[in-house]
């Protein structure tokens, strides 16, 4: 017991009492702490254990490699190229990250925009996130970085994958391109891959139409992460399913030839196997470099594409609907034979114009062609002959014949964006304009003007049907992965052999008889001769005034006002195999560029013997591709 004086004794008593109270209070608080621990660790253990596991394990998607797109001979048109790139992990850098970027730029060139992007990425991301410093390096540049690696802390050489189109612009309209995922893409597609950073989705063409198959299915890797999202280690991995390859019916060599022939013209061309309907080349010119969209196109380049008056972003072969002009006369001719109008010996006298009611319908040749039979009318493209024939046929039979050749409806080709064009008729006009059909309109229709609209693909399909005598349909996709699309067996055409022979004869004469509208640009190589039909599509209305003064030559008009030049052809004349349609916008000039193009293309196709070469399609096939054709 402590010693006390009297005064301290009372203090000690109070102190002891109060200390006891304090000790009681402290015991109470300790009980609260212990009770709370019991609650959290014993009673609520299960709940918190689950939450801790959720914190720890994160499932991450593994992006599958995108499938290739190849041509009929196995040539890669779109592939996943190795992308040699240099990454920087800011937290591993000794000194400043900017100094590291500069160190890399002394070894390989870095563009100012890339440098700016890199520095922005560094400041916006966590310090353990790898940042791209430079990509798409050549092997030599990449090797140089690897050599200097010991002196570049925080720098990681990396091989990524990126979509590449080896042929650039030539296949842009068929293949389309891939680009970053936009908000619209996610509306109907809940594939979690779309949320992957840097993921690319097909935006046009085949890349878009078969995106789901080409895309593949994601793999999953389960990783242990910390609160900052840093991966500590991988726990398990389910590999991604690579995207499926798409085999096209195209021949890359022919496609490149077409691309070369069209040059810088605003033009379109389709080449088909007239027997099977396989599209061998489909080109719209000018094209664009699809690789730009993958990397991210600059505003200047995008504006240049959208404001160009040659519309490089439009696939004119499918989405361009043009008046077919005189190429449509083949339809009238075939219908006239089967209707018993253009019987042997049937002729029309062309004086240069035909009068119907109080209207004069002019022939393109002011002096007239004189007496014309069917063969001569096609060869000379005599308008008056077809005015008269059409007048006797009537619009109903013309309409039916046009549909039989494939006009007025989409062909159902696998490339998206196809237009159906238009074939006018009585019901069509009443529905469209609410007024009845006029007979004069039948005459205008006969020479492929007025309401008639066709796509180059439809014109090519028509030509193939004339050449083969079968109702062939175009297809451009042979197979997607293991799913194989057999060529659609072509049904019989609703025309007699005599009718088709008559049209073929006229087209042969057009190209191979002196005086034919395409004779000057015929194929002279024996055995490779082509048969064809020229056409001109009016872009503007020719006024009565102009008619009076004499037709102004297209060469003397501004480019935008010149007529479109068309040509459809098949080759060889005997046993035709290749059908071709060419349109050159505002190209109706004396030199007939469209005929020259078709000549060079058809000659190339025959000499290369595209249709008979062994293909490199996958051997096994099962099931059929589900397309809109059904």
């Amino acid at each position, binding site marked *: 017991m*402590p*010693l006390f004086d009297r*005064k*301290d004794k*009372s*203090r*000690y008593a*109070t*102190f*002891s009492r*109060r*200390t006891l109270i*304090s*000790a009681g209070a*402290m015991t109470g*608080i*300790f009980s*609260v*702490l*212990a009770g*709370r*621990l*019991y609650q*959290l*660790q*014993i009673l*609520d*253990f299960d*709940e*918190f*254990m689950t*939450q*801790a596991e959720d*914190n*720890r394990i994160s499932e991450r998607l593994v992006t599958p490699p995108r499938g290739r797109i190849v041509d009929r001979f196995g040539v890669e048109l779109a592939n996943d190229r190795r992308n040699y790139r240099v990454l920087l992990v800011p937290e591993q850098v000794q000194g400043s990250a900017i100094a590291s970027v500069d160190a890399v730029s002394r070894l390989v060139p870095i563009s100012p925009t890339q440098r700016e992007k890199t520095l922005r990425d560094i400041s916006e991301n966590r310090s353990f996130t790898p940042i791209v410093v430079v990509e798409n390096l050549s092997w030599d540049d990449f090797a140089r970085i690897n050599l200097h690696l010991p002196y570049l802390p925080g720098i990681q050489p990396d091989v990524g994958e990126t979509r590449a189109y080896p042929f650039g612009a030539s296949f842009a309209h068929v293949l389309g391109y891939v680009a970053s995922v936009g908000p619209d893409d996610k509306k109907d597609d809940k594939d979690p891959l779309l949320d992957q950073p840097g993921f690319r989705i097909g935006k046009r063409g085949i890349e878009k139409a078969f995106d789901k198959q080409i895309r593949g299915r994601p793999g999953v890797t389960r990783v*242990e*992460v*910390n*609160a*900052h999202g*840093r991966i*500590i280690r991988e726990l398990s991995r389910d590999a991604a399913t690579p995207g499926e390859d798409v085999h096209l019916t195209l021949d890359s060599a022919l496609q490149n030839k077409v691309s070369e022939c069209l040059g810088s013209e605003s033009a379109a061309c389709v080449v088909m196997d007239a027997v099977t309907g396989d599209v061998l080349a489909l080109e719209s010119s000018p094209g664009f470099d699809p690789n730009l969209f993958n990397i991210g196109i600059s505003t200047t380049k995008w504006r240049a594409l959208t404001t160009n008056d040659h519309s490089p972003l439009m696939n004119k072969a499918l989405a361009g609907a043009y008046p077919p002009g005189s190429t449509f006369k083949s339809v009238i001719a075939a219908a006239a034979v089967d209707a018993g109008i253009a019987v042997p010996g049937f002729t029309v006298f062309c004086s240069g114009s035909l009068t119907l009611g109080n209207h004069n319908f002019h022939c393109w040749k002011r002096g007239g062609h004189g007496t014309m039979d069917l063969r001569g009318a096609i060869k000379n493209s005599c308008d008056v002959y077809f005015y008269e024939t059409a007048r006797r046929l009537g619009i109903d039979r013309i309409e039916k014949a046009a549909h039989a050749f494939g006009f007025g409806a989409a062909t159902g080709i696998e490339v998206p964006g196809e237009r159906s064009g238009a074939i006018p008729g009585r019901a069509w006009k009443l529905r469209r304009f609410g007024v009845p059909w006029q007979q004069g309109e039948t005459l205008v229709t006969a020479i492929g003007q007025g309401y008639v609209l066709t796509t180059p693909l439809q014109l090519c399909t028509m030509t193939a049907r004339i050449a083969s005598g079968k109702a062939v349909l175009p297809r451009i996709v042979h197979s997607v992965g293991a799913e194989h699309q057999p060529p659609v067996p072509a049904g019989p055409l609703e025309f007699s052999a005599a009718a088709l022979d008559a049209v073929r004869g006229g087209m042969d004469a057009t190209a191979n008889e002196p005086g034919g509208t395409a004779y000057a640009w015929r194929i002279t190589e024996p055995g490779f001769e082509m048969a064809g039909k020229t056409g001109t599509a009016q872009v503007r209305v020719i006024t009565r005034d102009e008619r009076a003064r004499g037709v102004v030559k297209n060469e003397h008009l501004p480019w935008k006002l010149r007529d479109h030049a068309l040509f459809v052809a098949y080759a060889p004349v005997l046993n035709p195999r290749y059908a071709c349609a060419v349109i050159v916008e505002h190209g109706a000039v004396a030199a007939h560029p469209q005929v020259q193009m078709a000549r060079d293309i058809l000659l190339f196709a025959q000499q290369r013997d595209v249709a008979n070469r062994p293909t490199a399609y996958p051997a096994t096939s099962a099931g059929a591709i589900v397309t809109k054709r059904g």
Partner: protein
Amino acid sequence: MASSFAVSARRPLTTGEKLLEINWGFLLLITLIASAGFAMLYSIAGSSFSPWAGPQMLRFGIGLALLIVVAMVDIRVWMGLAYPAYGVALLLLVAVESIGHVGLGAQRWIALGPLQIQPSEMMKITLVLALARYLHGIGVEEVSKPSKLLIPLAMIAAPAALVLHQPNLGTAIILVLDGCALLFLAGLSWWWITPTIGGAAAAVPVIWQFLHDYQKQRVMTFLNPQDDALGAGWNITQAKIAIGSGGFTGKGFLEGTQSRLNFLPEKQTDFIVTAFAEEFGFLGCMVLLALFATVIFYGIRIAMTSHSQFGRLVAMGVTLNFFFYIMINGLMVMGLIPVVGIPMPLVSYGGSAMLTVMFGFGLLMSVHVHRRTEVPQRASGII
């Protein structure tokens, strides 16, 4: 026992005798508690002594040496130093307002060459000393006289207001609690205590007006942590997950996923206990609580055996200070009170708090060693 005691009371102890008098069991006890801290700092650093466990062990070593040195000094010397030390600490608190460093948005430090001084930590010790000295000098019936009460109240209020202004709410609360506890132990009348507690409860809405935005936010977050589960509520939510997922036996040493994978905020300082709870579970926590309780039990016993009112008040002041740390930190990490920046004594990483606690235990030990020393009413003449 009684004879040896009578002898020793009359003559000053030699240094050797003093060393023998030190309660070495108590030192072993606090070393055990600190070791729990070392283990956790090692674990959360990913099984590494750097950056935390190594320096912490060094500091604890220095702290132990300091404790022994402080224990050797006669309590009458500490009594003589009480007012001057309090005055210096108060001056430094004023100084920190003008020249202090801003750490984590609050002015708390003064740089003296390589040393960083945290006057608010110093104040926790000097306030206890100064109040003990004052209350030692007056009788139990005098404590409740308004004229005598005014001075200790001012001694508490001045530093508390300065610390609150820094702003450091946690330390201000500790200072007020320390001071009021000493007044209570010295025998303050219930006629003062009861109305004060009632008044304080009524004043809560008024105090709310004077809180900083971040303090208000902490309170709001505490009340509704789910409202902001990824923002300010993150701390509370993650801390509770860490503790709860420990279960009965814990996940095992070095196996805590919450703490080792960075889900815990400020895991090495204020929230270190959550890492301990995760790895050692309910059993480990009970052992730790028992160790803390034993320290407090020792403190009370030392206070009760002291022959002087100064010794008793210093011993209880230090012990209660230690308890308040445990209470506030414990309630905070378990989500029972809003987050205030108070570390777990001996366990949390940090130099200042460690030295303060060890200095306090040094005083406690000094009271123990000098428990039979008679302390005059007035300190004059000692120093």
